[in-house]
């Protein structure tokens, strides 16, 4: 009973302190709203305004027609080149990223039913973009070629079924229109939660050390675990508020991210996640002596946690040995569960084992923090 009261007053204290720290409050508000909005609407990893040039020895209607199919917003035509030297200079200086080289007699070949060649040079110094350019160009060219063949044979598009072809039918699950904002905004929200839950409790703990208030607590009947737990419970409240704000204003308000599972379940696993992530933060807090150290250690710790979660990188793109380390990143579990709840509508059979593993990590680090906490203070002379 007394212990509960202590926990309660300490939690109220933490919240009051946070509320009074206007800079931190504004920073958190910014992160939960504007930052997530920017991440959602910011850069796109898809083709956009790719500058390309053409070296056309044919100068025919056919080549012009094909060029015309490379349109905005995906491509941007930069004009014709006169010499191969100009082409290499242009690539070196990065003036365009792709170059189509039409051979002499391009149209003629097409007309006389001879296979013709078209060369595409792609600047892959940025390989991500280069890959996309090549893939998308191939699609445009093959559509154009298909149209020509059909035309030649006097077929309409509907008559394609008369050929023995594999007819690929797509079904994209979870995000059928491929809204990049859904993924970007949601993963930014999760990253923001991670950042705040690691930095804020660590900073709060170190501030107590720096200001000596921790001594006052230690001579009172408060136990180290109560001190740590009160910080976690305060953080939980803050994060839940911020999450509601972010989901309501940004995810739903701006990007209309679907919530296919139970929103309550999302809030619940968020509470679990805050517990775990705060544990990591408090661990950093017990190790460091001042705010600068907290900052450094957080940078060092947060990078692998975010990295191993699969936010930026699909796990498939990681080496196997790294992939096996992912279970140690609480964000990995949280991310899977959150995407499951928002986009896929998964149920508890999916959530329960992951939530269990995540909480397990949390209990482990919190245990370690309490241990360190005691040790650190017992040693002080």
């Amino acid at each position, binding site marked *: 009973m007394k212990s509960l*009261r*202590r926990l309660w*007053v300490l939690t109220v*204290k933490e919240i009051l*302190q946070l509320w009074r720290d206007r800079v931190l409050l504004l920073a958190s508000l910014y992160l939960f709203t504007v930052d997530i909005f920017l991440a959602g609407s910011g850069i796109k990893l898809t083709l956009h305004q790719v500058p390309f040039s053409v070296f056309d020895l044919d100068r025919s209607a056919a080549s012009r027609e094909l060029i015309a199919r490379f349109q905005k917003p995906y491509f941007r035509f930069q004009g014709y080149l006169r010499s191969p030297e100009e082409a290499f200079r242009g690539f070196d200086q990065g003036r365009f990223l792709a170059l189509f080289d039409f051979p002499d007699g391009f149209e003629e070949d097409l007309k006389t039913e001879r296979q013709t060649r078209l060369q595409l040079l792609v600047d892959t110094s940025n390989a991500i973009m280069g890959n996309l350019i090549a893939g998308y160009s191939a699609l445009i060219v093959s559509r154009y070629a298909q149209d020509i063949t059909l035309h030649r044979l006097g077929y309409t598009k509907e008559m394609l079924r008369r050929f023995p072809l594999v007819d690929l039918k797509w079904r994209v699950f979870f995000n059928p229109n491929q809204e990049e904002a859904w993924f970007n905004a949601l993963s930014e929200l999760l990253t923001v939660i991670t950042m705040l839950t690691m930095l804020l409790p660590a900073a709060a703990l170190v501030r107590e050390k720096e200001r000596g208030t921790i001594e006052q607590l230690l*001579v*009172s*009947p408060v136990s180290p675990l109560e001190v740590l737990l009160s910080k976690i419970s305060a953080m939980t409240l803050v994060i839940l508020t911020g999450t509601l704000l972010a989901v309501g204003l940004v995810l739903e308000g701006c990007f209309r991210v679907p919530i296919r599972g139970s929103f309550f379940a999302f809030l619940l696993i968020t509470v679990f996640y805050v517990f775990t992530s705060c544990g990591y933060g408090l661990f950093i807090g017990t190790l460091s002596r001042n705010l600068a150290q907290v900052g450094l250690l957080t940078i060092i710790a947060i990078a692998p946690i975010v990295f191993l979660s699969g936010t930026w990188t699909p796990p498939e793109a990681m080496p196997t040995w790294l992939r096996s380390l992912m279970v140690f990143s609480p964000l990995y579990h949280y991310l899977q569960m959150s995407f499951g709840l928002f986009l896929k509508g998964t149920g508890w059979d999916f959530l329960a084992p992951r939530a269990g593993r995540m909480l397990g990590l949390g209990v482990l680090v919190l245990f370690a923090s309490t241990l360190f906490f005691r040790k650190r203070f017992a040693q002080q002379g």
Partner: protein
Amino acid sequence: MERVVVEVKGLGKRFGRQKALEEVSLRVPQGVLFGVVGPDGAGKSTLLKIITGLLDFDQGEVYLFGRRRSSERDFEEAKADLCFMPQGLGANLYQELSVEENLHFFGKLRLLDPQALEQRKEELLVLTGLWPFRRRRVKHLSGGMKQKLAFICSVLHQPRLIVLDEPTTGVDPLSREEFWSLLAGLVWRLGVTALVSTTYLEEAERFEQLALMHQGRILLQGTPSELLSQVKGEIYWVQGEDPLDLGEKILNRGWHLFPYAGGFRVFVPREKVKEARTFWSQEALQSRPIAPSLGDLLLGLSPPEPLAFREKGARAPKTLETVVRTEDLTKEFGSFRAVEGVSLEIKAGEIFGLLGPNGAGKTTLIRMLCGLMAPTRGRALVAGYDSRKTPRELRENIGYLSQAFSLYRDLTVQENIRLMAGIYGLSGREARLRLKELLKLTGLEPFQNLRAEDLPLGLRQRLALACALIHRPRIVFLDEPTSGMDILGREIFWNLVFYLSRAQGLTCLVTTHYLAEAEHCDRLALMHRGRIVAYGRPEDLKRELEREAGRPYLISFEDLHEARERLKAERPVMVFGRRLRLFFPGKAEELEAYLRAKGLKALSWEKGEITMEDIFFWHTVGKDET
């Protein structure tokens, strides 16, 4: 004609809306040890930083080495001839570098040629006794050593003006003494000027001239004796049958008082002296006039805050119950004994002082008593509980006010008290009652909705005391509760402690750096190197010292330096401005004969009072040497 090194006229400086300095004017003649004395927040640092060109100012004129300086460039030109040591123990040192490496850096930064650097380095290291530690990293040095090193690093390039910002804050009396003689020696020998700030009013007599600062203004300027003659009143020591009753009556008259040597030390305004004499004869058991100190200057200037003893007639029952009992309490860190065989007894309702230099083991002892640390050997019973067996019960019966202000600055007065009430598990109703009671007791009612960070230091410490008392502990541990506070803040704080002890029977264990404050305690223990070296009532300790060493004399000589060198070998000598302070067991005539035998001639001499500082030295340095 006297040459002036620093002159400041009508200086003004604001930080945002807050006025830091107002109409400050100051003259520092060449070759003088000049002090800027005042409590925390008086504007001392700001003034020193402006003079050394580290801080911009809004109004007024600054003259340095005879030239008016206003732009950043003007000050740049003067920097070759001055130094500045910032506040904080060894704050300007590089903690990860060794003693020698620090000196090298300062020397090279000041473009000393290698030979001169080596020579001066060696000289100064030997002089300060740091030579054996020259390869040690700064972070492993003691506080006193850091401060000496910071000082010699600053003066390595032999500046004409030495500016030191609170060099003695946080340094124990022993190191303080060493520091003063070091500084005085340098000033005399090289004829340089030193401008030094301090919060310790009792250090004022170390300066040749000084300025007393308060709330951004300079109140008075002159030599210590000139300043003392300005005290607008007389000081009495009085003792009454019922101390609370007497104190109440004195406070009602609007006179300042401190609990002192079993009675009160009362400041009586000059115009009330007659009234006081009659009053003493009616109400007091004993009374006698005592010498004023510089702190009294400030008292004379401000009317007392109407915070008197609160509940009328409340008296703690007289008991002889023991609240703290330690037996052979020892704490070892590896091979180092921080506390060794301490056996103490503190009775209920006592104000018990714990004194000692840094590293004497005071904090370790308190931490063991509070249950923050387990003793290596021995036993401590606090309020009837053994910290090792029943830590939680112990914590519920003690209050603790730690060295640094350890409350939540961003919470209000009320919120802080409520938080503590919750932590100690007080029920809602109980907490409300206690909150009201404590606000009234500490006089914080008008400030209850202000944030702790917006309170002046004095009020903050009262808040800290209120928080430490929330759960009605049997004993409170006050670890340097008044450091940095101004004299009025200290007065109120001590009176509060006195009231709590006498009216509510609260036991208080206090440590302090202000040795003068030791006189406010009922009994005290002096710690040195982990042991208790003296133990008893302040007046008994003084009497004992007089018996053993005699009375102190303040003597001025033609050649002070020479006199000090000759006397130093036989007995401890302290430098006080342009005089030496010397203990001599015997009459004045005998002293003269003694000096003559040494080939010295006193220009003038004066008998001094035995202070706690003397007791401190006798039991630390004195005992070390014999």
